[in-house]
């Protein structure tokens, strides 16, 4: 990924970070609705959807800022990739089980699970991959971008 222009990487970071921040907003304000959306996937046991709904949106928010500002960039982008893989699997299993449920993705109100959501998440996953393996980085607040590498 060394050949990709650092400015382009910065742009990708900005867009991906924005997606995560935007997606976290409604979930933080209404954890009850997000918990019900999670429960609809019928995959989380013992009522733990509430616990997930309490902290997952904050992970999204923190990594969103982390990716844009370059704070714990590696960790943020690694977590974003992990989350996106998880989201893809969740949506896929719901589709395979024939559930016609709300995505709960936080990007668009009332959006249902479907191939377009999977494709969208694959694009975001690709962005995470590019950022994670990029070497020519600019704007990293903490840890600082190494001056010589």
């Amino acid at each position, binding site marked *: 990924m060394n050949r990709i222009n650092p400015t382009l990487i910065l742009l990708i970071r900005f867009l991906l970070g924005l997606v995560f921040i935007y997606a976290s907003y409604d979930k933080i304000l209404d954890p009850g609705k997000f918990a019900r959306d999670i429960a609809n996937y019928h995959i989380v046991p013992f009522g733990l959807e509430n616990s997930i709904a309490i902290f997952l949106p904050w992970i999204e928010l923190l990594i969103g800022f982390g990716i844009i500002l370059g704070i714990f960039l590696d960790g943020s982008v690694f*977590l974003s990739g992990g989350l996106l893989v998880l989201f893809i699997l969740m949506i896929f299993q719901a589709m395979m089980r024939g559930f016609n449920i709300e995505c709960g993705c936080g990007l668009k109100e009332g959006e249902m699970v479907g191939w377009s959501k999977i494709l969208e998440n694959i694009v975001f996953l690709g962005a995470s991959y590019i950022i994670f393996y990029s070497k020519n980085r600019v704007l990293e607040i903490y840890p600082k971008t190494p001056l010589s590498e």
Partner: protein
Amino acid sequence: MDYQKQSIILIALSILIGSIFNSLSDDGIPWVAEPIKIVNNSEDALDFLAEPSIREVEIETAKALHGSGILFVDARAEEYLSDGFIPGAIASDDISMLADQIETKIGFDTGFVIYCSDDDCGSSEELAYHFQDIGFNNILVFRGGWKSWKDAGLEIEYHE
């Protein structure tokens, strides 16, 4: 610091901030979701729908509820009100007029508190059941009533 350590820190921070925010937020939720209880047959279901939801509260709860603006209904006869009553409480010897007043103010489904003179007065309970028969759904009976309110030194209202 490698990406694994950063990820762990980010997750830990999210759990911490999420817990604090959730405990402070009005829209906070319990950590574990409680499933909706199952009713096994139609008889139980109908019983549940008609179930009286009258509960007792004591002075501390009554005080907090009063602070939150819930309606208080004084079940004592009007002649006793000259001693004072709980601020904002409504009262009337004409029960159907009292019911109309409650309905106009808060409707049938918003809860309210009924009290009478003391622990054993009984009229608040009696009135609660009467109101329930009329169709009011959520009624709290303030055990200890007027006496415990006055003994606790809480604010009192007097008729002009």
